[in-house]
């Protein structure tokens, strides 16, 4: 039972990080970022390259400093990838006609090209990342839980809490929430859509990068490792209510539980059915999602 709960929470942390990023950009600049998977994968490769470089040139293979470095470099690379997406798809298009559709297509293009680029640069093989929290297991009663799982949950919770407080307390956070509610009004109080949009993209990139490094604790980094998190992140951000961090977290926990339970008691292959079924059920009863902060979701 505890194992089920832990693996559900691990999934929830990863999905939550990606979904919050998608939700932030979608609600604040009105762009559905299909390149979030590309950003996610970029973070993983950034962390991988950093580990390789440290091993080859600095002869560092273990240690806490390396682990912190891996996480930070992963987040930084993904944040830069997020800015690149902004540079290509957001800045040139955002005040043109039909931006939502054009942005969608532009980010889809970046996603496709990005995947091919990763295959060319790194090859199709899986790349491993170091075990950040060691390979030990802790024991609660008769149950063994990997340090990696506990670490993932703690770090993700911490980072999500920081983002939540930042959104509530800081000037930039207030600007971003103002932009979600009324982009025109935000413009008129001096909030620059362009700057704030790039900040939103960088932050959601960093969150995805963190999730990417965490995912690589159990899986590997591969050119397509961003596809599944993107899909699940998208439906979670909808189910959680665009722009609502608490709603997104709640939806991630729900979907994480559903996935863990389905995989354990039935077949892994049934997971997508259960996930999408759950999201449809949530949206049927709460069309604005669990959080539902936006009075009228941007068209």
């Amino acid at each position, binding site marked *: 039972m505890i194992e089920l709960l832990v693996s559900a929470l691990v999934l929830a942390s990863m999905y939550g990080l990606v979904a919050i990023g998608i939700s932030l950009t979608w609600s604040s600049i009105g762009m559905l970022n299909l390149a979030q998977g590309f950003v996610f994968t970029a973070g993983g490769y950034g962390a991988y390259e950093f580990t390789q470089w440290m091993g080859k040139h600095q002869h560092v293979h273990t240690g806490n400093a390396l682990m912190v470095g891996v996480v930070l470099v992963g987040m930084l690379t993904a944040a830069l990838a997020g800015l690149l997406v902004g540079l290509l798809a957001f800045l040139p298009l955002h*005040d043109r006609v039909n931006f939502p559709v054009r942005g969608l297509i532009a980010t889809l293009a970046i996603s496709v090209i990005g995947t091919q680029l990763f295959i060319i640069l790194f090859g199709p093989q899986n790349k491993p990342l170091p075990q950040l929290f060691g390979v030990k297991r802790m024991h609660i009663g008769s149950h063994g839980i990997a340090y990696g799982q506990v670490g993932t949950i703690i770090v993700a919770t911490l980072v999500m809490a920081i983002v939540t407080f930042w959104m509530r307390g800081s*000037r930039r956070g*207030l*600007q971003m*929430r*103002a932009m*979600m*509610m*009324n982009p*025109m*009004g*935000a*413009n*008129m*109080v*001096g*909030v*620059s*859509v*362009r*700057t704030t949009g790039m900040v939103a993209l960088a932050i959601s990139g960093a969150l995805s990068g963190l999730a990417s490094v965490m995912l690589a604790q159990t899986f590997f980094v591969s050119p397509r490792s961003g596809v599944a998190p993107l899909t699940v992140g998208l439906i979670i951000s909808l189910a959680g209510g665009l722009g609502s961090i608490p709603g997104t977290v709640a939806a991630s926990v729900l979907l994480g539980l559903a996935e863990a339970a389905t995989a354990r008691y039935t077949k892994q292959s049934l997971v997508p059915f259960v996930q999408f079924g759950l999201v449809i059920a949530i949206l049927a009863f709460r069309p604005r999602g669990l959080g539902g*902060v*936006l*009075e009228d979701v941007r068209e």
Partner: protein
Amino acid sequence: MREVSAGYGTMRVLHSLNFTVEAGERLGLVGLNGHGKTTLISTIVGMTGWQDGSISFLGNEIGGRRTHGVGRNTPKIVRSGIAIAPQGDAIFPGLSVAENLESGAYTQGAWRQRKKRREAGLDIFPPLASRLKQSAGTLSGGERRMVSVGRALMADAKLYLVDEPSLGLAPKISTALVAALCEIDLGDGAMVIAEQNLPLLTGRCDRILGMHAGELKEDVGEALGDLPPSAELS
């Protein structure tokens, strides 16, 4: 403002306007619906479809010829010291009244003094004091307008643009709102109030200009046409 024209698409709304607002002045802008008051205010902050001509603010050029990028320069212009309370209101419905007000304190200086500025704003609009925590989307029309105007006043601006403060409000409320606006100590800042209802501004503004078919008229009566101004009050 010199030789300023502006419009949307192929439509030209403003025709070569020339006027100056002095520091410390309260200027009333009166005209009927659809004669360009809102467009004039939007032009100053760069939110019309296109514009031409020179707008100088504190010695800096903020106008110029522009055919695209609607609103792209607006944040920059606003941050250079112009606060705007747009027509209707452009408040943030999901944020609390306090957050709505604070969002107006954009510049570094104003943000640091936001608590003090908010207190000053609440003195002008006392009904908001008890509703600070309430979501702005649940307010009445008059209260929303107060939030909108109050948000503009939070900014550390040298020019305040208020567009139709009375629109859609009960006469009693709009009179109180405009009276409150006209009593604020602007210091060396200036204020432009666009309004359909001439008697609301008469005697309260330093100067009143009329607006008719996209042109400014010194004679307000001409701008309002044959319609006796008092007819609107009754």
